[in-house]
């Protein structure tokens, strides 16, 4: 509150020296960041360090790459990994549905916010609830098959979660059902932020629905689509445990037909007591996620601007 500081502030301050007078030095930031940093270091850095160390050991002894060799030649692990890769096919499906609905919603005047609110709703539900209810709907004598039979479409009825050939795809459909609302809202925000002039010009030129969106909307949405694609890819690779656990009672069944990498890790660690093998599998999953994170990080800035522009 000295006179000197007041005078400095009155005049146009050269940008280099504007923070020098009273603000404590940058080291001061550490005081504010430290408590959070401490928890983050414990939960992430410490845990990942311990995990990596453990993945090279067996009963406390260093065994080099043995655990990885065992895991990578375990047919169950490879099956689990393959299932995660198959679930990646849900990503283009999610993008297509979300895009279509976002575009339709952007052209809908009446009931716009109602539809948006309803379509986003499944996204906030706990997987536990979604898994149990949809699991119940899809049982052999469940409501879905009852409805199909009632509509004379009995041929389409199936043992959705009991047939090993389709159980994983049923799971994928449930994930799409829950996750698609996120994409709709994300894409809608982007579409509504696009300049309208081009659309007006296109309307004058008589461009139809498909032509208009193919040539004008899509090219301006590559950023947010890529962001959504990576986000959902990460979900399919490393965030599907809850679905599988709930809908198969923790078994990944029937048989091994819905075992995913997370469930493999969970079962190896907490049911088979093969902690070291579970650790090696977790390291592998972590590396795959890390790969996706790098892509995610590169896309982050661009697409977030699209969201904030809402």
């Amino acid at each position, binding site marked *: 509150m000295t006179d000197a500081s007041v005078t400095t502030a009155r005049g146009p301050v050269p940008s280099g020296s504007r923070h020098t007078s009273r603000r404590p030095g940058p080291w001061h930031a550490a005081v504010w960041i430290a408590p959070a940093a401490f928890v983050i270091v414990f939960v992430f850095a410490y845990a990942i360090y311990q995990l990596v160390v453990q993945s090279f050991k067996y009963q406390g002894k260093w065994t080099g790459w043995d655990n990885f060799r065992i895991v990578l030649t375990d047919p169950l692990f490879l099956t689990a990994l393959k299932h995660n890769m198959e679930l990646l096919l849900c990503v283009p499906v999610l993008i297509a549905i979300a895009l279509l609905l976002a575009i339709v919603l952007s052209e809908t005047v009446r009931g716009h916010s109602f539809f948006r609110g*309803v379509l986003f709703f499944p996204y906030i539900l706990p997987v536990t609830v979604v898994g149990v*209810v949809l699991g119940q709907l899809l049982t052999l004598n469940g409501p879905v098959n009852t409805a199909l039979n009632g509509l004379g479409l009995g041929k389409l009825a199936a043992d959705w979660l009991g047939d090993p050939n389709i159980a994983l795809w049923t799971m994928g459909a449930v994930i799409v059902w829950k996750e698609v609302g996120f994409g709709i809202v994300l894409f809608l925000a982007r579409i509504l932020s696009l300049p309208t002039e081009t659309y007006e010009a296109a309307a004058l030129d008589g461009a139809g629905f498909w032509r208009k969106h193919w040539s004008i909307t899509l090219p301006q949405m590559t950023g947010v689509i890529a962001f959504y694609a990576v986000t959902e890819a990460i979900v399919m690779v490393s965030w599907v445990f809850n679905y599988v656990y709930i809908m198969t009672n923790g078994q990944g069944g029937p048989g091994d037909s819905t075992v995913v990498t997370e469930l493999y890790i969970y079962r190896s660690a907490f049911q088979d007591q093969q902690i070291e093998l579970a650790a090696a599998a977790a390291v592998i999953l972590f590396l795959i*996620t890390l790969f996706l994170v790098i892509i995610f990080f590169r896309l982050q800035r661009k697409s977030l601007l699209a969201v904030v522009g809402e």
Partner: protein
Amino acid sequence: MMAKISSPIARVGSVGRYVLLAACTLSALLPGYIMVTGALKTQEEFLGSPWALPAHPSLAAFATSWSAGLPSWFVNTIIVTTGAVIGVMVLSALAAWGFAYWQFKGRETLLGVIVSLMVVPPVVLLIPLFQFGAQLGWISTFRILILIYIGLMLPFSIYLLANFFSAIPHSLLEAAQIDGASTGAIFRRIVLPLSGPPIATLAVVNILWAWNELLLALVFLQDPEKHTLMVGIAGFRGRYSLDIPTVMAGLTLVTLPLVVAYLVGQRFFIQGLTAGGIKGE
């Protein structure tokens, strides 16, 4: 925002759009319908005519599921959620202010690393954290779970608040600085009062995340007395596989607070959950 619809072809298109939207709305709401009506039926009625409205609505299933442990799961979930969310809000606000107010070397990189931690799957951290908890004898205690939840929620929280704090006009902060306010006072008296909406949005996202989390609660809270709603519900289906109405009633009770919250604060849900892309469950 779009041009007026006039030609017959366009009108057909407009009808088609509403049909599509109506179909999707129906598919989004139907499981909820089955859940709520199922809770009001008897087992026979549910199996015989799952789609019909309950002929003789009965609350018996609610009573059964309520006495099956729901109250204590609710309390446990509230304890864990409250503890974790208060913890993460305080820590992330402090850290975000540190990131937003000072330009220091490596700031961008550090923020970038923190942001990317958002996507680390919990299952990767599970084993070492469980062993750590076991060494301390903290398995089946709320504190270890709350601590881990705070850690997992921090990256997104810091990121969101740091973004917001950075957008506060510098002239405001500098004026206070000149008046001799300490950085703590600036934070308390200027930054926080301006940050109501982002803090509310963030709180909604974090409450939702902690409320819905299953995997960690399943592993860390092994004592049945300590089970949270999600853990309890996960075991419900096996226990009551022959009594679907009870399962549906339990699920309805679990979902109800979320539905109410969503109806009241939809804006916060939508803004918060789309702000960073990843929130996880």
